[in-house]
Every structure is written in structure tokens, then in C-alpha cells.
């Protein structure tokens, strides 16, 4: 198991809602997204080790489009980068911002 953390201080847009999507099932993950006072932070707990670079690439891409100041907590059971991005987009859809 590995814990990974990223920070995106340039994401400053105010977010007021929170979202919970997904389940920690095989090949899937759970996302908790909630407002942050300043900047965005990502905390990942994954059962698969050694994919820090892939996580970084996915979040760099996500925050190239999304600029909300949020805290994102992820519990992952081996979701592929494609599924990760879909779950993140689903969470953004839930907060509707």
C-alpha cells in the first residue's frame, strides 16, 4: 500500500459543495471531494505500489482543466488511469461547478 500526496496551489476557485463517488472494489476507487480554503490538495491511498508517476500525470491533466480549491481523498483498489479520470469527472459533475 502507498500514500501519495499532491498540491495544486494555483487552483483557487471557490467550491461550496462536496461529492462522494465510487467504491473501493477491484479495479475501481472511491473519491471524496470537498471544499478547501486555498489551493487544491490530493491525498491518495492505493493498494498498488509504484504508480506515483501515473497518478501525477492523471492529476496534472485533471487540474489543467479544473481550477476549484478542493481537497480530494482517494481510496484506490487498482483503478486504471482512465477510470481514475472518469471518477474525478463524475465527482465534478456531482458538485455541478
Amino acid at each position, binding site marked *: 500500500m502507498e500514500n501519495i500526496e499532491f498540491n495544486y496551489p494555483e487552483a483557487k476557485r471557490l467550491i461550496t459543495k462536496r461529492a462522494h463517488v465510487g*467504491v*473501493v472494489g477491484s479495479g475501481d*476507487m472511491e473519491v*471524496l471531494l470537498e471544499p478547501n480554503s486555498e489551493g487544491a490538495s490530493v491525498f491518495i*491511498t492505493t493498494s498498488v505500489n509504484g504508480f506515483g508517476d501515473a497518478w501525477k500525470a492523471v492529476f496534472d491533466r485533471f487540474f489543467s482543466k479544473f481550477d476549484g480549491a478542493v481537497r480530494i481523498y482517494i*481510496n484506490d483498489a487498482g483503478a486504471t488511469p482512465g477510470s481514475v479520470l472518469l471518477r474525478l469527472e463524475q465527482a465534478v459533475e456531482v458538485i455541478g461547478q
Partner: protein
Amino acid sequence: MNAPTLVPDFVNRKSFIELDARARAQSLFDEGTWRELVGPFDRIESPWLARQGIAPQSDDGCIVIKGKIGGAPAVAIAFEGAFQGGSVGEVSGAKMTAALDLAAKDSEAGKPTAAVLLLETGGVRLQEANLGLAAVAEIISSALALRQHAPVITIVAGTVGCFGGMSLVAGVSSYTIMTREARLGLNGPEVIEQESGIDEFDASDRALIWAIHGGEQRVGMGLADSLVEDDADKIAAAVRDCVHKGVPEKHRTEHVELYRARIAALDTSSQIDPATLRQQWASHKGGVR
């Protein structure tokens, strides 16, 4: 135009099995009456999984929702089958026990509160073995306390099924609702095969598994009460029906003499097949409600 006749009913049906545990529980309540207790943002996770290299889940795979069903107070406790096989750990077990105890407390105070248990579970979580076993014992004693005042309704919809210690919880409940896709049994097929050999039970023989553990057989034998189609509206209606019926005159586990007699009467000199067993048991009076 022929088009409408070409669309089979199941296309427009809202499948219950396809919903996750949270959506399943929500779908049972009267609109706008429910709220989730100890939800994912409270982050009460299993403290044991991470130590064993397994990612936890923020609700520990147990969803508790309080609201009204058919106008009456009720609480639904749902296990998420996709997370660790819906297994019962320290946290998920404590959530279920606490919810049942609160429902019993409300019921004793003159506000009968039914409990609906959505069980998609393989039983005790092996990573939290002793704590999980203790949790099952607590859940059963809480369910027994509540069922004197308000019905405890179990739904096994599939596709995980309900096995191990949690099948005992289904056993002590007032009513059990199953779909044809669901399975209910103390030992799961893989466990039986592992312990007794493939000659005893072939866990890859799906026809055999469903003939023994399947919803149709369980309801046919009187070990579950109603067989409902995999349709969210129909399952919600079946639950409302059970809430409305209230506490049964006699629970299944109180028919001790009936079941003792049935077991004593079994002829084990030759292999009993599921169809015969269903025929024999269903014909007894009092077993099937």
C-alpha cells in the same frame, strides 16, 4: 409501428442489482424522508486494513440510512458487496449494531422502527477475524432484541449473495426477501468444495449452486419469504408490505420443533436432490408464511 412491441419489459425496468449499496438503500424510502447516518465524510474507516496493505473505504462498506417507509419510521443498513466482498469488520459491524440498537430504543419508546438489512456479504472480514466474529454475535443479539418490537427485514438481491455469519442474521430476521439471482447459505460454494472436496460440491457448477442456494429454492423451501423480480420498485413495494405487516406472530427461528422434525425425517441413505427437498418442506404446514 412495431417498435414498442420489440422492446422487452426488462429494458425499462429499474434494476435493483445494478444499484450500489447506497442507492439500493435510498430507493426503499419515501421520497425526501431519508438521511444518511455516519456517512463517508465522517471517515470512520477500518483501522486494520491499511496495516495489511489494503485500501480502506470511508464508510467501511456499510451504509446506514434513516427515514420513512410507507409512512412508518425505518432504518436501512446496507453492505456494499463490491468492497471486500461486503465483509463485516469492526467498523461496519459496529455501525449495524448501533443502528439496530437505536431502532430498538425508539421502538421501546413507542415509535416502532423497522430495520431493513441489505446483505451482500461473504460474512466475517478475514482481515479482522475476531472482531468480525464478535460483530456478528452483537448484530444477532441486537436483531433479536429489535424483532420483538418491529420487523427486521432482510433483502438478499445478488449478485454477491449472503453467506457465513451474516446468513445467520438473515435467518433471525422477521422476513427475508430474495431475487432469483440471489444466493443464501451458511457455507459458500467455494468453502464447501475446499473443505469437503469437489465430489461433495463443485463450486464451478452454477446450476447446482443456484438449485441449492438460489432465491427460488430458498423461498420454495420456506427459508425465505418472498421471491421478487430484480426491480427496484417491486422490491420497495415488498419492503413496504413487510413493514405494514409488522412483527410476525412467530419467527422462523421459533419453529424449533418443526425444523427438528424435518431434519429427523430426512432420508440420507440416498442423495437428496433440491427439487425433492423443496417439495417435502413446502408441503409442511406452518413453515412457509
